[in-house]
């Protein structure tokens, strides 16, 4: 999976972000290639989610360059931004499902908005996506507040995939899930990547997910990228924060489990 010649889908170059006097990013750089699951990890508050918000045009960095799907995100007019938004899907940490709509309507909403398909076909495609993420057919008619946390995440993923995006951003997909559901979601992410050829950027500090799903991982800390590579490569990086990540109690357990499965 480490084919360096593949097209670059996301390029982050020397991004600096400050909130007041607090420096969140100090020249962060990395790139994501087509077809890989790229994870961004790091402790809470290290700027993972801010980086995601910058990539999806919800926040402007103070300096640096961001290219997504070949477009310069920071110098995009409204029309270009609209076109770009249709090519990616974003799943927010808490799902952000529209609470006034049923799951079916939630998943169908982007289709109604951006395509001219018949309502009948849109409903069928939405049902397909709902089944694809592993939700039972009965979930389609339910409202988000009638679903469990895990089901809500899956429903959010179904909506993210509604427009068949080339690139998917997932913010903490397994946060707040029990290990079984989280494991199921890991599998799902891999399967969708393999089947649909998606490029995925995952924000997560779930070690199981990092070991089992991610092709490459960037670890953020102290405002910089402390290391980029496969988990195996990263485990040899000599930095106290990275070291902590791999050789803390949970890190070791996750690693052993991942190795034993291989």
């Amino acid at each position, binding site marked *: 999976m480490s084919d360096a010649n593949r097209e670059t889908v996301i390029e982050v170059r020397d991004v600096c972000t400050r909130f007041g006097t607090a420096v969140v990013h100090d020249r962060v750089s990395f790139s994501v290639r087509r077809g890989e699951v790229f994870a961004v990890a790091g402790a809470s508050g290290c700027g993972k989610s801010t980086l995601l918000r910058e990539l999806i045009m919800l926040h402007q960095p103070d300096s640096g360059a961001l290219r997504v799907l070949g477009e310069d995100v920071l110098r995009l007019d409204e029309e270009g931004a609209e076109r770009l938004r249709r090519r990616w899907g974003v799943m927010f940490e808490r799902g952000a499902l529209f609470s006034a709509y049923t799951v079916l309507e939630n998943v169908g909403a982007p289709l109604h908005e951006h395509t001219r398909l018949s309502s009948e076909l849109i409903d069928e495609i939405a049902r397909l996506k709902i*089944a694809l993420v592993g939700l039972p057919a009965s979930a389609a008619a339910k409202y988000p507040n009638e679903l469990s946390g895990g089901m809500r995440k899956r429903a959010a993923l179904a909506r993210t995939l509604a427009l068949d995006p080339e690139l998917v951003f997932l913010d903490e997909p397994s946060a707040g899930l029990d290990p079984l559901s989280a494991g199921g979601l890991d599998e799902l992410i891999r399967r969708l990547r393999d089947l649909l050829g998606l490029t995925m950027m995952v924000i997560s500090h779930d070690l199981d997910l990092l070991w089992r799903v991610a092709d490459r991982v960037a670890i953020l800390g102290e405002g910089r990228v402390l290391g980029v590579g496969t988990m195996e490569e990263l485990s040899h990086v000599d930095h106290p924060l990275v070291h902590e990540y791999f050789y803390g109690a949970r890190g070791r357990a996750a690693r052993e489990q991942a190795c034993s499965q291989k």
Partner: protein
Amino acid sequence: MPRAAPPTDHIPRAQFEQDSARGELRCSGTWTLNHLAALEPALARLDMSGRAGWVLDAGGLAALDTAGAWLLHRTCERLRQLGATIELRGLRAGHAALLEMVAAQHAPAEPTPPHRSRLERVGRVAVEGVAQLELFLSFVGQSSVALLHSLAHPRRIRGHEFLHELQLAGFNALPITGLLSFLMGVVIAYQGATQLARYGANIFIADLVGLSMLRELAPLMTAVIIAGRSGSAYTAQIGTMVVTEEVDALRTIGIAPLDLLVLPKLLALMIALPLLTVYSDVMGVIGGMVIAKTHLAVNPADFLDRFEKAVSLSSYMIGVGKAPVFAALIALIGCHQGFQVGGSADDVGRQTTVSVVQSIFLVIVVDALFSVVFSWLNI
């Protein structure tokens, strides 16, 4: 900055052709979401008569996504249901895998719930209305018990919240209440001025403004303003806390939501509204005095002299005495509707509307009841 247009021209559009003579169906082009709208009518027109075996040639497919795969799968399924046999040919490995995945997820639509008759809907609305009333009454009961309990044990009253609510509902409402009351006094005096001047009864402007403001308009208008201003805020605040599970969190920590969220508001409003009413009385009378001076040449001194004789203490007390009742109504309805929020952002908006409409409605109904009762009692 001009940008090169995306090279869409040379991309073959999604196409579907039927060759009935050879029994062939040909799919070609990009079967992706953006291009599918054009395909739908063609697929709907598909005519399968006169032939049982068909070959679907997908060799020309340049791209396929899940939506396209679903359309392909659906078409095949429909043909099979009509008794035709389909042989897929020329499908690329990647596309075949996608089609297989889509086929595996085939999910039948849930049966839609049966249509309800009009009679049934009327019945349901009625039952729901009664249930709502019951809920509200039980809420009033619970709040009264909690209120009596905390009056018996004043230490349990949350002083900080109480003062905060007093400031929000009372002090912060002074400018808007004052301005509107002043204008109301101006309007009444202005309307009355022409009539009174015709009969040379200029001085009776004090009776007109004094009685109407103190007895009826000041308490009613202040209550309506506060229902729109604070009642809605109570519903929105508690409703949002229900959505974010903060109310549940309070319960688990062992803080009764009634104690923390309802009682301070109830007590604060029951104190603030009478005070605001008095303030509104004063501002309304000042408004009347301004018009009396400018349009009827009645000096403020004469106005006040007449005012003292015209307006009895009981009129004033009746006006101010209604205010705590209105306050209790507004606070209880506002809080109750907040707790009725189900869990969606939509609910917060709906319950806030219900809260304001109900509290204004009830304030006016109760005011009418007061009038009837007072006329019986001859006060």
